[in-house]
């Protein structure tokens, strides 16, 4: 009996739209005529489910095909894994039409089942499963909701939804554990909002709009599975029954009051700012000025229009400030500065200082001859105070210690330069240059006695004795600055004999004094002078080693002065009497001085001195 069914089945083609009889002609007209029904399907087992893992039911669909032929004789057969044969469904009724219900006695959990939908010998469908896999619980029952609270604005509300588990599921004994999922949405919405599945049978819903109605539905599933059961019935949530007096049905479209408030605030702030800017007092009160940098004790106004003395005193109180420009004792400190700074380049500036700013200085010391290094020769501090006969303005140099110190520095300066000289001399290997230097040396020697004497004479305690002592035979072409008047005039002393220094015969000629070398050890000069004087048949000068003159002491100087004086007195003055001084005609700083020669022929041309020294050539030009 089943054979023709099977044969027919193989000849039939399903295309989803109709049954086409495969008789060889697949014409459309035959298709159309045979489209009696759109869907012709075999009977199928739609689903087998167990709501509580104790019973299960299988549902199938009738096929359209069946109506065409024999009356329905569909059977549901089942077989457990332990069974040998197929058995028929025990209950076709309980679960409804086209269903088979397996009660507790027929249900075995964790046992593989196979269910077959068949009619006679025709098998339509088959499914194999085990009951623990097909658990789909019933939806929860007794769903209700209660109002938790409402917001202060009355727009939103919170509700609590409660329900009961499906009665079929034995949750209490723990045979099955259920999870519940709640879904809700507004009435006119289309998409449901889902909450996470939970085991508890109550859940709060927050921020529901009171003006709207909501729909709630629930479904459950076994905790360890992923498939949910059917949805429960929809529960409506409506807040209207609670009273809608305080319900704002519509939300505020545009927050006008916010705009007004902020606008007013901005306006107020603007007005305040304007008022503040107009009144500086108020402004100062609210916005105090930021303190500018300020030196303590100094008023910037004073600096702008104050007197120099005041400013000086103020600034001096700050320590390192050198008040040399405003101090009477400047020349001593001036020397200090010079000694500390033995740069050659300062020669010119020193000379400038000495020559151009002499009017500012009120010292009575002999200024250095401009052809010499003014610095070192200025105001030798060793001259004793008792020799303050020429002037009384060298009060600053009353401190012998200061003098000593100055002298030390001076001497160091001079000796240092001598070392430099020696080094420079050593570099000259050329005999010509040496010879030249020798020549110049002889010439320079002439210069240096005055320099030496000028250094001596420039010492504060200048005394005309010393000044008179220094002279050489042919050194009458120079003028020695003997005094600087307070008015600023330079008083030159007359030409003087060479000072008899402390010669050392040896070593003098060996030294090549270059004309450009402004500094030299005074002792060496004196040596040379002594030697020269000795050569020129000058009185023998008291020998003193240069080393002894590392620093001059007043006693030694005095002795020297006395000796010199004595020697001078003994020395026959062979030279012509030279004028004591020559006034400075023009001061061209830093080029040099133009001297008014009284007894000497006036130099026709002013000789430019480079670095404040007169070269021998220049001197020779000038002098006859």
């Amino acid at each position, binding site marked *: 009996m089943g054979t023709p069914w099977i044969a027919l089945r193989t000849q039939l083609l399903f295309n989803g739209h109709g049954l086409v009889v495969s008789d060889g002609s697949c014409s459309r007209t035959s298709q159309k005529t045979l489209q009696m029904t759109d869907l012709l399907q075999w009977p199928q087992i739609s689903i087998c489910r167990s709501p509580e893992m104790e019973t299960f039911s299988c549902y199938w669909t009738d096929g359209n095909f069946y109506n065409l032929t024999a009356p329905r004789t569909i059977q549901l057969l089942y077989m457990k894994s332990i069974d040998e044969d197929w058995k028929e469904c025990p209950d076709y009724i309980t679960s409804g039409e086209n269903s088979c219900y397996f009660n507790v006695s027929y249900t075995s959990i964790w046992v593989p089942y196979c269910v077959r939908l068949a009619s006679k010998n025709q098998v339509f469908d088959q499914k194999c499963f085990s009951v623990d896999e097909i658990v789909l619980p019933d939806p929860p029952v007794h769903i209700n909701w209660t109002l938790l609270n409402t917001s202060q604005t009355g727009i939103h509300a919170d509700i609590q939804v409660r329900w009961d588990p499906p009665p079929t599921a034995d949750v*209490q004994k723990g045979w099955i554990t259920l999870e519940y999922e709640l879904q809700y949405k507004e009435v006119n919405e289309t998409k449901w909002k889902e909450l996470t599945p939970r085991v508890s049978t109550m859940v709060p819903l927050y921020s529901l709009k009171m003006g709207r109605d909501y729909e709630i539905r629930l479904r459950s599933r076994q905790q360890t599975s992923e498939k949910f059961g059917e949805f429960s019935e929809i529960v409506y949530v409506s807040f209207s029954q609670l009273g809608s007096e305080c319900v704002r049905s519509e939300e505020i479209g545009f927050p006008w009051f916010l705009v007004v408030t902020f606008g007013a605030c901005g306006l107020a702030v603007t007005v305040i700012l304007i008022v503040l800017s107009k009144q500086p007092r108020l402004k100062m009160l609210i916005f105090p000025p930021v303190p500018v940098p300020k030196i303590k004790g100094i008023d910037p106004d004073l600096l702008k229009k104050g007197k120099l003395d005041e400013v000086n005193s103020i600034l001096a109180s700050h320590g390192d400030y050198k008040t040399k420009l405003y101090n009477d004792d400047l020349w001593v400190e001036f020397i200090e500065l010079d000694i500390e700074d033995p740069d050659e380049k300062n020669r010119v500036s020193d000379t400038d200082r000495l020559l151009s700013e002499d009017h500012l200085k009120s010292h009575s010391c002999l200024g250095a001859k401009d052809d010499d290094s003014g610095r070192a020769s200025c105001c030798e501090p060793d001259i004793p105070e008792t020799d303050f006969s020429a002037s009384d303005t060298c009060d600053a140099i009353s401190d012998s210690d200061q003098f000593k110190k100055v002298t030390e520095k001076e001497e160091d300066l001079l000796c240092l330069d001598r070392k430099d000289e020696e080094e420079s001399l050593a570099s000259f290997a050329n005999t010509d240059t040496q010879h030249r230097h020798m020549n110049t040396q002889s010439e320079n020697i002439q210069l240096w006695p005055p320099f030496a004497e000028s250094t001596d004479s420039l010492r504060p305690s200048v005394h005309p004795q010393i000044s008179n002592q220094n002279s050489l035979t042919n050194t009458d072409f120079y003028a020695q600055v003997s005094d600087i008047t307070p008015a600023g005039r330079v008083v030159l002393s007359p030409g003087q004999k060479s000072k008899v220094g402390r010669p050392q015969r040896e070593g003098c000629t060996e030294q090549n004094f270059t004309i450009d070398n402004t500094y030299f050890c005074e002792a060496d000069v004196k040596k040379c002078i002594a030697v020269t004087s000795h050569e020129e048949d000058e009185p023998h000068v008291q020998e003193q080693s240069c080393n002894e003159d590392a620093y001059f002491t007043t006693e030694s100087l005095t002795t020297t002065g006395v000796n010199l004086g004595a020697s001078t007195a003994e020395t026959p003055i062979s030279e012509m009497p030279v004028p004591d001084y020559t006034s400075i005609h023009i001061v061209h700083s830093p080029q040099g001085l133009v001297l008014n020669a009284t007894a000497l022929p006036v130099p026709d041309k002013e000789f430019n001195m480079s670095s404040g020294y007169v070269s021998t050539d220049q001197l020779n030009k000038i002098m006859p």
Partner: protein
Amino acid sequence: MPAYIGDAGDSPAPVDPSRSAPGSGLRRAMAPARAAGRAGAVAALALLWLLVCGPGDSGCHLLTVADLFDRVIRHSGRIHSLSTTLYTELEKHFPPRDNELGKPARKCHTSGMLTPNGKEYAQKIPREELTHLILKLLQAWKEPLSHFNQHIEHHQELPDDSLSKAKQISNMVHELKTGVEKVTKKMQSMGIISNSLNGMASSEGTGLSISNEANMMSDSDFIHCFRRDSNKVQSYLKILKCRIMPENSC
């Protein structure tokens, strides 16, 4: 049908007398005593009551049987979830079984074990046997799981997630077995169940033969079988816990 319908919102564990106040617990303990056939349970409850510690007591270190059961039940639930996830992952990689017209297949190596296949049967068999069955099941899966872990590592196409899950499962099964053993000892010490070692000995004997069968299965069948047995263990534990608490009329 349950004797009464309590608060369904609670956890599946029935109300525990140990959690409630001492007085109410005693009252509850008195109520089931009226029912016939509950004398043994009452005695057990009395014993339990003596050893109970309230959950709020700070100095109490004793864990009640109920707490222990809760823990093992949660653990078995986690095992079941993991195995379900692993099964779905493996099904993607391995071809699904055809719904063949024939006998239902999927023979598991534990299929030969006689286990209650329904709630009623689980409620009827003695508690000792139920406990023993649980332990037997766990023992039966111990070896095959370790073999499975070694075997599955060679599968290159499987994601690392699956491999880690498999390892995790075997560890958790071992922990669960230890936990159930502890609960069993506790119950035996409290007199809830009798000391019977006969069943235990036999389970170990059958374990070896079962393990051999397990090695013959395919990976997909293996995980499918394990998933089913993990659900079995979880359900048995739940029923066992319910049966220990008599007021739930399990």
